[in-house]
């Protein structure tokens, strides 16, 4: 009984402390109403002087219905951390990066080691390294300022372009921060990031540039350049178009731009090494990433005439292997795919259209040849720049460790590349 009374007292005391904490509500917690939800972060070389410009795209929900987003730029900060802290100081909002899904690096930043800035995200537990990383042409600030024709905020539009579905069809080569860091810290010291370009398009129907222009500015001081944009959950009728106040003249307004990420930037030791064209990106994806279904054009003779065929390709098997022949490394791509014709640029008799999906031998061989050429081109670019795009060095280290020391410096150039690519048609 005495013990029961003691426990009752202990629990009463604990409950009192708990209630005190609960009702005082003053022990360092920061609630949702004072939190700025950063959905994307852009980092550029500082426009003026040393350091970086850090642009945060913040979701600002409205009281009811759709909200908007604001781009806020901290200029000339020495570290990303300083930029984030400044965001807090200057706006009064506590920025949370847990929902940051995109880190966009300005192109100029890639001339130096990008891990100078990406290190912050690896150090900080509050930032998820599951977010996507991409490089953009020009500056991240301008890219965030571009509006999507479907009334998305730019970060959401970019994330859609970099979706796993896009990766599966080989259109882009998507990378999350963790994978990029793993590549950088591995023996390869290499990685690849999608390269985003903004293409001007006609204004979308119902695009609301005028509305956007009429929105109040969120500028709090000279260094901050907030821009309101609609949230992804915004209904089209009430959503606002994006507007960049900090961008250079002539940039897109009112949802007139589309984002393309079909090019891929290669990195070696954290610096830009080369850029793969869309065709090379597709070949790389088909050979080395999760892509198993893709579209591509080939020019081939059909019924004695040259025709452009759009092929639908389904990868059945892909394998990369490193072997040694006569003491020299041989790297083999083995790819088996099925292809069928989705379209051609020539009119054809109805019988041919009826069986058009069955690719002719000539088309299949042309596809193999095209694929091989693009793959070779990508591999050559990678080898020239030192980027271990296909994991040759990695394989040497993991599977032929005894030969690693001998070839660690020159494996990319020394390895003979072989292509065992077979396309077959649907029967």
């Amino acid at each position, binding site marked *: 009984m005495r013990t029961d009374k003691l426990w009752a007292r202990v629990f009463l005391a604990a409950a009192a402390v708990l209630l005190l904490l609960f009702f005082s509500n003053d022990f*360092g917690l920061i609630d949702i109403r004072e939190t700025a939800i950063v959905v994307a972060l852009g980092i550029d070389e500082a426009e003026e002087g040393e350091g970086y410009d850090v642009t945060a795209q913040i979701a600002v929900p409205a009281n009811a219905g759709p909200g908007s987003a604001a781009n806020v730029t901290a200029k000339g900060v020495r570290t990303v951390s300083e930029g984030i802290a400044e965001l807090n100081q200057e706006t009064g909002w506590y920025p949370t990066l847990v929902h940051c*899904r995109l880190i966009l690096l300005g192109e100029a930043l890639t001339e130096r080691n990008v891990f100078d800035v990406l290190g912050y995200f690896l150090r900080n537990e509050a930032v998820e390294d*599951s977010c996507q990383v991409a490089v953009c042409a020009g500056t991240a600030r301008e890219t965030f300022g571009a509006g999507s024709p479907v009334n998305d905020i730019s970060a959401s539009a970019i994330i859609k372009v970099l979706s796993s579905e896009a990766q599966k069809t080989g259109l882009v080569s998507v990378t999350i921060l*963790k994978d990029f860091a793993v590549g950088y810290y591995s023996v390869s010291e290499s990685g690849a990031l999608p390269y985003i370009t903004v293409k001007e398009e006609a204004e979308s129907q119902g695009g609301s540039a005028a509305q956007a222009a009429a929105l109040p500015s969120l500028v709090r001081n000279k260094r901050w350049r907030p821009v309101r944009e609609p949230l992804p959950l915004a209904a089209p009728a009430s959503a606002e178009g994006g507007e960049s106040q900090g961008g250079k003249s002539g940039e897109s307004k009112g949802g007139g731009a589309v984002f393309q990420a079909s090019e891929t930037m290669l990195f070696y030791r954290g610096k830009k090494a080369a850029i793969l064209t869309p065709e090379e990106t597709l070949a790389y994806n088909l050979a080395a990433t999760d892509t198993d279904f893709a579209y591509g054009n080939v020019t081939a003779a059909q019924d004695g005439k040259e025709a452009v065929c759009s092929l639908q390709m389904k990868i059945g098997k892909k394998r990369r292997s490193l072997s040694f022949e006569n003491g020299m490394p041989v790297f083999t791509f083995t790819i088996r795919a099925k292809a069928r014709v989705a379209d051609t640029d020539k009119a054809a008799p109805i019988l041919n259209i009826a069986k058009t999906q069955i690719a002719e031998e000539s088309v299949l061989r042309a596809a193999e040849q095209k694929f091989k050429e693009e793959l070779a081109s990508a591999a050559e670019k990678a080898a020239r720049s030192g980027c271990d795009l296909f994991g040759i060095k990695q394989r040497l*280290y993991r599977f032929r460790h005894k030969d690693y020391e001998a070839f660690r410096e020159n494996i990319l150039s020394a390895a003979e590349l072989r292509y065992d690519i077979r396309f077959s048609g649907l029967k």
Partner: protein
Amino acid sequence: MEKLKVRQICFYFMAMMPVAKLLVYPAALAFRAKNCLLFSSLLNSLLEGAVVALVMLLAKKTGKPLFVLLEQRAGKLWAKIAYGAFALYFFASALLPLLEQKNFVLQVLYENASTLLSFAPFFLLSFYACTKGASSMGRIADVALPVFALSFPVLILLALPHADFAALLPLSAVPAREIAKGSLFSANWYTDGAFLLFWLGHFEYEKGAAGKVLGAYAAGTFAVLLFLAVFYAVFADIALRQQNAVAQIAKYTTSFTSLGRVDYLFLFALALVMIFRMCIPVQMCVHCLRRTVGCKPLLPSAAVNLLLLALTVFFNYSFLEVQTLFTQKLWSVFALFAYLLPAAAALLALRRRRSP
């Protein structure tokens, strides 16, 4: 200490033993043994498995508690001294996991500038747990198993799409010396064999109990090895920076889904099992202290938990220093108490029984 069931001991080894090794241990192992971390872990598990086997053999031969065995062999005073020494060992072995758990809680379960105040209520729970007997410990193991069996596989399954098991190669890249070091320097995560020694006499040996317990230990070890393999397969060369391993491995699959971080649901469930596991060394410390001093559990429970709270506050910002001290300087002490003393005690007791 009241009675435990053999089943509950099995459940402990299957569900509660692995969770202690899911936070800092994988990263610590990756720091030393790199991609060969499985070997380091396996080495420890084999040593501890041998201790478990010996203790179960002892349990088969004699159903007496360790205190009685020591009393018969060396007298009450020495029995008390041994219990006192093990009380200290259990206290020390509780400290690093506590700091580990504290960091996990503050870093993973909070987003803002959390304070130690958020973790401090744990000691109230631990105090309450310490005043309960072994039967409560056993029943908690009964609860822990289904929670673990549900959440652990889900986290592993969520991690698998991002795992590249080739990262565990080459097997020859890490010198054997480093693997051994990795093993020895992680002795403080292997205290479960010593727990079993003190449960001796508090469970009734039933037919095939040794096999069951060893099987359960093997299952727990497999869970740890599987986790380590998946962990390194996901993170490869950046594994050593993943301090809260279990919170990291599954997020890559769930981050971009419309449901968001559903892995947290299972993480909270595992955190519950971790809390139960965290209380065990403290409970064992109190048990040893009670036998040494000969008092009711209330006072030693309060003293031990207050002291642990004080040390947690004191070492709030010194986790790395404590980790270095415990793993690199005091590893021999931990190895002594985790492997050598239990094995020696079991062997001595067995020899005495054989000799007329």
